[in-house]
């Protein structure tokens, strides 16, 4: 069993033992099982999936960081909403903001970073639309 702590600034979303958690890392999705090697990665906007017994729970996370230590997995999400309650409008407005930011930024490196974020947000939107 994998010990899983899932917290956002507002509250503790989940704390307990699960079978597996799929985490949307910046460099790709990762399935974390018990005994995973210690790892730290920031999160991209995406869908986090918790597998427990036969049950599956999906949560939309926007930004944050995941840490795997021998004690278990800790996910610190900037924003997290269960998929069923997720409001597509918030995402749409976030995408619009990101588009404006990309257009406004003159700094090359900064724009690359923002463009990548925009790309991630759009991917998430597409994934949610399915």
């Amino acid at each position, binding site marked *: 069993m994998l010990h899983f702590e899932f917290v956002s600034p*507002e509250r503790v979303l989940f704390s307990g033992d699960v079978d597996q958690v799929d985490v949307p890392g910046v460099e790709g999705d990762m399935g974390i099982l018990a005994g995973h090697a210690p790892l*730290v*990665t920031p999160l991209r906007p995406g869908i986090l999936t918790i597998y427990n017994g036969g049950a599956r729970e999906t949560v939309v996370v926007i930004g944050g*960081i995941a*840490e795997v230590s021998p004690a278990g997995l800790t996910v610190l999400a900037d924003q997290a909403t269960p998929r069923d309650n997720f409001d597509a409008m918030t995402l749409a407005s976030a995408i619009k903001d990101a588009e404006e930011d990309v257009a406004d930024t003159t700094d090359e490196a900064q724009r690359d970073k923002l463009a990548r974020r925009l790309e991630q947000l759009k991917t998430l939107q597409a994934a949610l639309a399915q």
Partner: protein
Amino acid sequence: MPSLKDLRNRIASTKATQKITKAMQMVAASKLRRAQAAAEAARPYAASMEKVLGNIAASVGSLETAPLLLRGTGSDNVHLLLVCTAERGLCGPFNTAIVRHARERAIALTAEGKEVKFFCVGRKGYDQLRRQYGKQIVELVDLRAARTLHFEHAEMIAEKVIARCAQFEFDVCTLFFSRFRSVIAQIPTAQQIIPPLFDSKAADALGGAAYEFEPEAEDILHELLPRNVAVQIFRALLENAASFYGAQMSAMDNATRNAGDMIRKQTLTYNRTRQAMITKELIEIISGAEAL
């Protein structure tokens, strides 16, 4: 000797005051519930953030290239005291307790020959510190316009602090706030946030295993450290809000009780005076009748 009318007025005004303090107590009580829930909900996040960062810092070790926010400037000559207080008074010793804690630290540091600067969040703390440390207060953030505390407020403060850190304006930053334990117990607390202090136990949790970083450890730290500053400030603000309402509630409860005592005393004086006047009039009437 005040007249009966004066006494009546005095009782009426004390009653009016009591009504106000009673209302304030009830308002504080209802706001406390929400503030307390928010403060308690924010604790796990801040604690996990600290733990994760501690683990990372321990595994990165004393990297030369570690960001400024993690390793500090290497000296501790200039201290920035980030004093978070409330915007309003009428809350008992709440503001004074935080300011006193910060002032004691400032005095100790000055005695060691260090330079002390203040960054005030909340007007009440600023007002109290201004008299003594007017020139050392580098900035004041006023959150009076904010009806509810949002993470953006903490981010805004954190940005200002980090900008000063990047300019090498200070070496060590310590956060002063009041931790909420219960309605009657709020503990003035000091927490060093730049460079952050970690539990040395955290390093052992890994059992010597090194972290894999995806992408580089440096990138992660660059993103995580400013965020940690904001998170710790946010937690301090939420704890402060809960403590403030707790302190206000007990202060107003006391005030209501005192007003009650005063009304009882005043009523007693009023009744005595009235009785004395009646007796006096009776004596006058009787002695007048006897004289006839």
